[in-house]
């Protein structure tokens, strides 16, 4: 028996790999909403695009809480999740996310209606809100990746690349959506930025997969699931082709056309959604102990 003869135990009493399913699709949707929203908000903030900021805040304030609460075992107690920012990325993220919604809403309010109250767009308050919102947006864009990488259990997640992935996907999806919004000045620059971000995403995936392939047996198993076996279709088709290659080609060929921008954006979003779901699905627990002399875990 070699490492190639991998046993997936399911719910049996056989030594082998088990799929993690604690963090499942509703968590994936929640993560998607938070990162897309925060990313869109952040780049809109940088580009002074209020529409984008509002649009970004929407999934953060609605989709993320909704899907996250539906994942929670005891939703009524969820406020407790904020209690341990000293050690938990969940706590930090929840606080940051709440602050993002707060500061972001306040900022948008000031930008839209502030002049009625004597608050100008370049006032100290607004600038403070911008900085704070920006910081909290960054927190929201990355904390989920940090939370995933925080422990050694799911080997493929246990990597510094995860927070980077969150950050990059946040930015990329943010820019992809912002591109479509009216008033997103400097479209060509945005499109070029998006192209670069897609390139960065590609490199990030390579790094993650490489690290996994040469990492612990659990990580390698995850990579196999993603690239070769159970989930290969989805990964290659959605995350890679629809999510990176197609948008890259389109944006390189016709960056100004609304149609290509739309298709590229949809592709990027689909690719990201797929990846969010897949990265959970390929998580496996390694066998606790193996007596098989051919198994590296022996």
């Amino acid at each position, binding site marked *: 028996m070699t490492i190639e003869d991998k046993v997936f135990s399911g719910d049996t009493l056989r030594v082998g790999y088990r799929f993690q399913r604690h963090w499942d699709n509703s968590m994936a949707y929640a993560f998607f909403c938070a990162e897309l929203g925060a990313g869109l908000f952040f780049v809109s903030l940088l580009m002074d695009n209020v529409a984008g900021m509002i649009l970004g805040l929407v999934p953060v304030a609605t989709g993320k809480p909704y899907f996250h609460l539906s994942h929670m075992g005891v939703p009524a107690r969820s406020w*407790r999740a904020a209690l341990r920012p000293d050690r938990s990325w969940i706590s930090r993220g929840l606080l940051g996310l709440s602050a993002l919604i707060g500061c972001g809403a306040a900022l948008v309010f000031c930008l839209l209606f502030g002049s009625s109250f004597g608050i100008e767009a370049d006032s100290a308050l607004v600038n403070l809100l911008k900085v704070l919102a920006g910081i909290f947006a960054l927190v929201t864009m990355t904390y989920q990746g940090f939370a995933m990488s925080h422990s050694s259990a799911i080997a493929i997640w246990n990597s510094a690349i995860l927070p980077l992935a969150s950050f990059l996907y946040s930015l990329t999806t943010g820019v992809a959506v912002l591109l479509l919004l009216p008033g997103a000045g400097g479209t060509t620059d945005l499109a070029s930025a998006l192209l670069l971000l897609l390139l960065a995403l590609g490199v990030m995936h390579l790094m993650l997969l490489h690290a996994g392939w040469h990492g612990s047996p659990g990580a390698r198993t995850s990579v196999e699931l993603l690239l070769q076996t159970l989930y290969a279709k989805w990964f290659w088709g959605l995350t890679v082709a629809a999510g990176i290659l197609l948008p890259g080609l389109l944006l390189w060929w016709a960056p100004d056309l609304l149609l290509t921008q739309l298709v590229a954006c949809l592709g990027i979003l689909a690719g990201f959604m797929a990846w969010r779901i897949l990265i959970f699905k390929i998580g496996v*627990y390694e066998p606790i102990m193996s007596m098989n002399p051919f198994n590296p875990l022996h």
Partner: protein
Amino acid sequence: MARMGMVFDLKACIGCNACVIGCKQENSLPDGVFFTKTLSEEYGVYPMANRVYIPTICNHCDDAPCEKVCPTGATYTREDGIVMVDDAKCIGCSTCAVACPYDQRTQMEEESFLKGLFGTGEITPFEEQGYGRYTPGTVTKCDFCSQRVDAGLDPACVVTCPTDARIFGDLDDPDSAPSKMIRERQGRPPMPDKNTKPKVYYVN
């Protein structure tokens, strides 16, 4: 203070899973929930084929990742090293469950409490007197029968094991049964590369 730990004697274990049922009895576990399990692994090629039985349990790690990632503080370590879960504080986010390299955390699902052990919706008096300690949705695990330990007893799984394959005691006490066994038979923790410092060891 003490550091309560366990040693599994792989020579003795016969994979009978009496421990599993002793634990289910003690803890009124709903259907499909296990706080401990004994696994089996076949290896080798006929006629040199073999099978080994490997008991598993929460390792009550000194550096417990489940405790580190818990956002509410529901998971905490007692003075004697037992890693506990405060049912009242848990929100069921499952972050502990994806943080545990040993996959020892279980989420209690409402459906199992409603269907009962026989799956028919008929809840036996045994279940009625026991289910109340759990809140559906929370993510919990073995607690080394902490209440029994407080009463000076061994955990339920240890007491019933027909082959004495489970040895429980204070790892800080060099004369305790587990300490001696670890010393004399080269006890090793599972997956040491995960750096969680388990308090459960295995001897061949």
